[in-house]
């Protein structure tokens, strides 16, 4: 049988975004894979060098459009490190609340898209409906559904409104009912089980060497979650379990995400209780003024100008819904970051796709690539 290359993408129902999966097939069998990305490369790292610290937050929302607030916090943590600013505790709790709500909405979005790919139509409608409830919560305190522009160097823009915690508790109660129902739809479906169990296996050792992170890594049985292992923000004060499953296939990844959603609900409840008890400011008082003043048009100003602000470097890593994301900011004492580097978990997870695609059939590709949870905006930046 002769081998041939097939292009799947950039416009393909499987891709969920703009990328091109080139697979070499021998009949139905995949023998090689060469993913091609960059169709959504928007030069975010370069534009960051032209923007003041607070203005970069706008770009971070658009970096990953299903988990915008996670990237906001990632960038803000690195920038605060580089500028040596500490946010007040209430701001940290509002951030963690946003994080976990975002994780919940991102995983629900993944569930909606993935199970539809597998062949069940109802979960898409379930998922989109329940995701809108979380987006309504976001809208009530950030003003936007997806692109929030909520976090600031030294805190968050505003506090949660009056009555928010009760509304949020109601949504969490609703999710308590819904999450078992989500699982019931999948676990009682022979189609789903047949198409996910034992498909797309990537063993733990390969995961680690390939740099794969997030639910894929934990599904392979590696017990690593940066929220617990390298604590940031106020996660050490919260009580939660890390979801680990010992089946490195599509089904294991689904299981890990389902468990993470339950843990997110648990964390949100704890944060809401804390917020009820502890009022306070949400923005640090001593934030240098230039951090947020309007920017001149790009190209008009030399960005290495020095204003006597102490230089520094900031590095932050966090557990984003897709995996471990990192940001590296170099502050050279100017109003703009000298260099902003973002590490996207999806970028690496796509890069490793050869290792978990080879040996399976062409018809398994949607099931395998869907289980990775790809967000192209994040991988291409």
């Amino acid at each position, binding site marked *: 049988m002769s081998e041939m290359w097939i292009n799947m993408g950039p416009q393909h129902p499987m891709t969920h975004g703009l990328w091109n999966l080139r697979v070499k097939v021998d009949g139905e069998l995949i023998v090689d894979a060469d993913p091609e990305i960059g169709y959504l490369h928007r030069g975010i790292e370069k534009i960051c060098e032209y923007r003041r610290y607070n203005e970069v937050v706008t770009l971070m929302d658009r970096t990953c459009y299903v988990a915008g607030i996670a990237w906001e916090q990632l960038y803000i943590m690195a920038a605060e490190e580089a500028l040596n600013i500490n946010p007040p505790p209430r701001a940290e709790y509002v951030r963690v609340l946003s994080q976990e709500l975002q994780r919940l909405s991102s995983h629900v979005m993944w569930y909606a898209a993935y199970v539809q790919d597998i062949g069940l139509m109802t979960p898409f409608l379930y998922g989109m409906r329940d995701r809108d409830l979380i987006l309504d919560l976001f809208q009530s305190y950030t003003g936007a559904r997806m692109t929030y522009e909520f976090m600031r160097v030294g805190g968050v823009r505003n506090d949660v409104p009056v009555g928010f915690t009760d509304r949020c508790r109601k949504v969490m109660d609703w999710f308590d009912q819904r999450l078992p129902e989500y699982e019931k739809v999948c676990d009682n479906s022979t189609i789903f089980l047949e198409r996910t169990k034992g498909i797309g296996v990537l063993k733990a050792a390969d995961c680690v060497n390939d740099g794969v992170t997030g639910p894929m890594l934990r599904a392979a049985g590696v017990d690593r979650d940066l929220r617990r292992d390298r604590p940031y923000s106020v996660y050490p004060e919260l009580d939660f379990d890390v979801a680990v499953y010992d089946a490195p296939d599509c089904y294991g990844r689904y299981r890990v995400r389902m468990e993470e959603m339950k843990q997110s609900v648990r964390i949100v409840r704890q944060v809401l209780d804390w917020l009820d008890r502890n009022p306070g400011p949400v923005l640090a008082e001593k934030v240098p003024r230039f951090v947020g003043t309007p920017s001149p048009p*790009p190209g008009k100003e030399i960005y290495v100008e020095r204003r006597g602000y102490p230089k520094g470097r900031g590095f932050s890593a966090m557990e984003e819904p897709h995996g*471990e994301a990192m940001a590296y900011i170099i502050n050279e004492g100017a109003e703009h970051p000298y260099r902003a580097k973002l590490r996207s978990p999806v970028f*690496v997870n796509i890069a490793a796709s050869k290792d978990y695609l080879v040996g399976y059939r062409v018809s398994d590709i949607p099931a395998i690539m869907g289980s990775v949870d790809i967000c192209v905006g994040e991988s291409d930046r």
Partner: protein
Amino acid sequence: MTDLTLATLLPALESRFGPDVKVLPSRKEVLGVVQVKGERLVEVARFLHDQGTFTHCALVSGVDWIEHIEVLYHLWSDALKGYLELTVETAPEEPHVPSVTSVWRGANWHERETWDMLGVRFDGHPDLRRVLMPEGYRFHPLRKSFELHEPEELEVKARHV
């Protein structure tokens, strides 16, 4: 190595590689910052991977300092629960660093991206192509000599050329 700590690892690294490795002052968010000479990079990487439990190469990136180009590696250790920062300096003209893909396969696309964005060649990389920009693009956009312009300015410029 179960009794591995950072206090023993960094001196062991310094004693083994001598003047090719320099431990720089650390910052609070990383375990340590180590400057490595380009020629010994793969050996150091192999040592850190095998003896130092740094099994996960999280990030390869680069910074254009105009006088030189700095390539950064962030390595994660499950035993030490933290990141180690390796930095390598290279010349701005024809910058090149040995590739660490033989140690961590995960560094593959990170190195391709660094080549794409900063023009750093990775010697021994199995497949050094552009990853984000299309093949045949002439520039390396994250160099400081590359400037951004409003699209209107560009159109005017193009008309005058």
